[in-house]
């Protein structure tokens, strides 16, 4: 009987674990609490969002070196940080790609690119891909705007694209991220709070 109960308990535990697994695969939705991370920056330092006590929130952008969509947005990412870091929302760029599958996205090449473009924000390597998986990032660039709550947790306020025209910055009609952060700074909800965009698939490690 004891064995049976134990087996039963084990079954339930396994079931619960498998459920938790499928839940986390879906990634974050707007309104969820985002986890912090501790990832290696191109400077060699480990960076967490908790390190930045004065920030009101963060513009977390999954991006990389090789993807033409990421490259097309590089200057706009730099401009976002320049405009919104002073207003409490600095950019944190995270490269989620497996360098074994995309050598251009290696840590060394990230260092080269950050230096070339004079990134004034952290450019982190998500070596285990755990953060991209937990957040539910699927492509680069993929943006998550987080707002710090009274208790210090980080709430997901916007997920999606930077704006509505990757190829032609001069023809952008909607600056989604800019609008979202401006809304948050006015104590309003971003609208839209979720957009889709074409991007490069994240290069996942082969399992």
């Amino acid at each position: 009987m004891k064995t049976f109960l134990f087996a039963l308990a084990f079954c339930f535990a396994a079931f619960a674990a498998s459920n938790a697994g499928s839940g986390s695969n879906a990634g974050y939705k707007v309104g969820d609490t985002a986890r912090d991370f501790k990832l290696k920056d191109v400077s060699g330092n480990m960076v967490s969002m908790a390190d930045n006590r004065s920030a009101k929130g963060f513009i977390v952008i999954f991006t990389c070196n090789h993807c033409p969509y990421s490259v097309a947005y590089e200057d706009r990412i730099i401009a976002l940080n320049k405009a919104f870091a002073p207003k409490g929302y600095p950019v944190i760029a995270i490269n989620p790609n497996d360098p074994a599958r995309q050598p251009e996205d290696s840590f060394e090449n990230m260092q080269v690119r950050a230096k070339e473009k004079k990134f004034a924000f952290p450019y982190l390597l998500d070596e285990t891909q755990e953060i991209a998986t937990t957040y539910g990032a699927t492509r680069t660039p993929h943006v998550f705007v987080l707002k710090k709550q009274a208790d210090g947790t980080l709430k997901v306020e916007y997920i999606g694209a930077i704006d509505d025209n990757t190829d032609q910055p001069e023809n952008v009609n909607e600056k989604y991220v800019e609008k979202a952060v401006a809304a948050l700074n006015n104590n309003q909800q971003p609208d839209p709070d979720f957009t889709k965009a074409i991007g490069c698939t994240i290069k996942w490690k082969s399992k």
Partner: protein
Amino acid sequence: MKLLLSLAVVLLLGAAQGRAQAVSVITFDQLDSLTQSTGDTLVIFNFWATWCTPCIAEMPAFDSLHRAYTGRKVRVVFVSLDFISQLEKRVIPFAGKRKFAPPIVLLNAPDPNSWIDRISPAWSGSIPATLVVNNAKNIRNFYEREFTFDELQSIIQPLMEDR
């Protein structure tokens, strides 16, 4: 409309194989119409771009499928998501070099948030992505993943059976 009709003829009935590969530029509404007018042909829309390594890697599988099913109401259409500014520089030279049998179109639709859900709400926006449609049989299946030839065949075969 006339352009759309001639496009549909080229895409669905097929251009002469082996002819120099042309790339037609289409709007989202035109693509949308194509996905609504397949009739009883299984049309496989494969979304790709010249810069997308996994896309380029799987294109030969789609090409082989298109050739293998010649005359059996299965067609592939390659939908390039390259920027329109890359048409002359990258897409046309790529098409010329690879000589794939399926037609290639370039989708010129800059605001993806306005149309990704109209292809499929399941699409997050990464490529490669593939839409399989047969309007007559009410089939509209979407896949945000990579395919090998065998994997493609295993999703096509069940859709070919009468039902």
